[in-house]
């Protein structure tokens, strides 16, 4: 750890070298960086993860001239609403904002994400490849990854054992287990089909090979209701019809309790979930285990990502260099990054931390002493990087949530929901001036 951190830390001298390379560009934007750094600078960061200020203060300790104020303007959706409002108003944007991977294309499209390439490219190699691909476009870098959500399976060991269920390695086995559990233990479900979270749906479909969007300039390909989606829909429709999965809205207290009480025996979820659960659950301590994400083909090694975010600097910031420095620090400083993982339940994006056996291999009592992160470390390296989000992902998520939830509530099948989704998204994209194909 000590040795790693020495290697990893982007110290001030290194940064100056990096910044020097980009000076030609920055001189256009304003003062040369060297001059700006003389003055006290305060940066405003919008982020919703708790205690982010602690990490920001670590940065200030290192760079005393730059202080960072963290504001929580809302959780997820409301956060982006605030950003868009500020963009619409033409004023009020922070210097930096937390930005989930799936929002990067949307805000890039709005032209507010500053290119951090000059500061960040030197540290590029330290990041897990897929995360860097998600934030960059050639040498342009629109955000510094700082946490990720490779997918895995969390399950209740006690429920599995009691009902003699093998940990499913494939989705077929998962389906069988669901049907078996529904028969053997009524009132207990293998899982909750969480369509109220479009992020989850996208993540699970990502693994299945679904690639709904491809954007090039103003041309966009939209294939939301392709065969992969239809097959996936049919898979879950069968389980829903058989009442072999629960369909509670996610993130409610009822849903949390269902996990804690063993009503939901498993959850296909992301790497940040374990720490979250161990902080929220009281009854099920020691009963949870982690396993790799079920595969569509036996022996497959394809996973996907759910959530995770980046730090992005806004083009409107009067301190682009300092913002870039800060974003890079937050993503790549191993000490700060380690804090994410331990304090905020975030899963790292740095190779050094992923490879850190001590950090990732720590046994966890909540999971009966299992080193759950090891499962997600494997998953992180298997994430297929070819997935693209739409440049209007919030609209897609909103519509997906509406349509999928409507079908669960009895309005047609899940397959129909994808058809409606396709129609609405195509109409929206066309309306927004895109050439849709």
């Amino acid at each position, binding site marked *: 750890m000590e040795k790693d951190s020495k290697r990893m830390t982007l110290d001030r001298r290194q940064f100056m070298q990096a910044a020097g390379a980009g000076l030609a560009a920055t001189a256009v934007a304003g003062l040369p960086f060297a001059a700006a750094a003389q003055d006290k600078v305060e940066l405003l960061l919008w982020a919703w993860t708790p205690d982010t200020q602690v990490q920001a203060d670590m940065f200030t300790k290192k760079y005393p001239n730059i202080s960072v104020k963290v504001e929580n303007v809302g959780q997820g*959706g409301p956060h982006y609403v605030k950003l868009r409002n500020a963009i*619409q108003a033409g004023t009020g944007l922070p210097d930096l904002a937390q930005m989930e991977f799936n929002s990067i294309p949307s805000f890039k499209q709005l032209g507010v994400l500053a290119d951090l390439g000059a500061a960040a490219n030197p540290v590029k190699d330290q990041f897990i490849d897929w995360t860097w691909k998600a934030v960059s476009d050639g040498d342009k870098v629109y955000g510094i990854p700082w946490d990720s959500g490779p997918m895995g399976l969390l399950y209740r060991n006690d429920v599995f054992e009691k009902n003699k269920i093998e940990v499913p390695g494939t989705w077929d086995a998962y389906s069988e287990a669901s049907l078996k559990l529904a028969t053997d233990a009524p009132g207990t479900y293998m899982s909750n089909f969480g369509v109220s979270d479009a992020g989850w749906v996208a993540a699970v479909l990502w693994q299945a090979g679904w690639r709904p969007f491809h954007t090039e300039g103003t041309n966009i390909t939209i294939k939301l209701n392709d065969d992969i989606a239809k097959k996936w829909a049919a898979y879950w429709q069968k389980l829903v019809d058989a009442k072999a999965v629960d369909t509670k809205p996610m993130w409610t207290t*009822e849903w949390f*309790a*269902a996990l804690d009480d063993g009503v939901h025996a498993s959850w296909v979820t992301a790497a940040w979930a374990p720490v979250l659960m161990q902080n929220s659950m009281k009854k099920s301590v020691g009963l949870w285990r982690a396993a790799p994400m079920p595969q569509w083909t036996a022996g497959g090694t394809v996973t996907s990502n759910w959530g995770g975010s980046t730090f992005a600097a806004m083009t409107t910031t009067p301190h682009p260099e300092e913002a870039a420095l800060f974003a890079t620090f937050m993503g790549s400083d191993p000490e700060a990054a380690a804090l994410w993982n331990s304090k905020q339940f975030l899963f790292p994006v740095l190779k050094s931390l992923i490879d850190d056996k001590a950090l990732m291999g720590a046994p966890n009592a909540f999971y009966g002493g299992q080193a759950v992160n090891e499962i997600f470390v494997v998953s992180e390296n298997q994430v297929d990087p070819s997935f693209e989000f739409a440049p*209007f992902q*919030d*609209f897609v998520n909103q519509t997906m949530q509406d349509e999928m939830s409507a079908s669960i509530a009895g309005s047609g099948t899940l397959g129909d929901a994808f058809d409606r989704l396709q129609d609405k998204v195509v109409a929206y994209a066309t309306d927004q001036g895109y050439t849709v194909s």
Partner: protein
Amino acid sequence: MPDAVATRRRGRVYVTKSVAPYLFLLPFMALFVAFLIAPLCYAFGLSLFKTTMVAGTQFVGAANYLKVFTDPSFWDGVVLLFKFGLMQIPIMLGLALLYALILDSGRVYGRNFFRIAFFIPYAVPSVIAALLWGYLYGPSFGPFGQLAEFFHLPKPQFLLDGTILGSIANIAVWEFMGYNLIIYFAALQAIPQDLEEASSVDGATGLQYALRIKLPLIMPTVIVTIIFSIIGTLQLFSEPYLMRNLAPGIINSHYTPNFYAYTLAFTNQQYNYSAAVSFVLGGVVAVVSYVFMLLANRRAA
């Protein structure tokens, strides 16, 4: 008083009758214009344009309005509100009236206590009211669910397709019934005492007096509260917005027109279309209120 604007009279600023009304109106009207008229004009301006993500902004005239008129997401919401209003308003105001008459009858114990207690929900922010009722509705943690479980009864389902509208209506009833009750009660209290004496001399019972003398006398008040309730109903936003995460499948992003306008602006970035939706909603509110007033007047005439 042509040129007597404000003369100084023995050391005191003397404002004349002709300038005074403008002076008194100035603070309110200035703010009214700044925070109501100006934003409305601005929004109306917005509604005539269309801004897209990649094709820029263009003037589209009435196109956004024409789109609203054929937008099922909007009209579904309006229909839902009619259902909601037809359920919630009669129950809320009917009960408020009934309880106001009971309070006013003088035939109860603890009148002052009840009067204050009934008004208290009005003090609870709708955010908190929705949160509390959300908990109460919960099938596992809600006390009603817990009670049902304890008695081995089927759990009441407050958040399903068929029941959630009623559940939201209940929150609105809970929040505003006491407020209307107090208004009715105050109106009833203003009825002269001698009418009661006259009616009892005429041989009317308390019930007859309540229904045939008091009720018609406070009808103007009732009509005003109905109009305000109609307006409030058609603007329904907070309760479904806050209940959404409990029942995302049923409360979709265009559940009520106001909610739809919110989604359009804040999620879909269709500020222009959102403004048009808001204006059409305002029109619906005006038309419904006006039609109701016409009906009420015809009945009264």
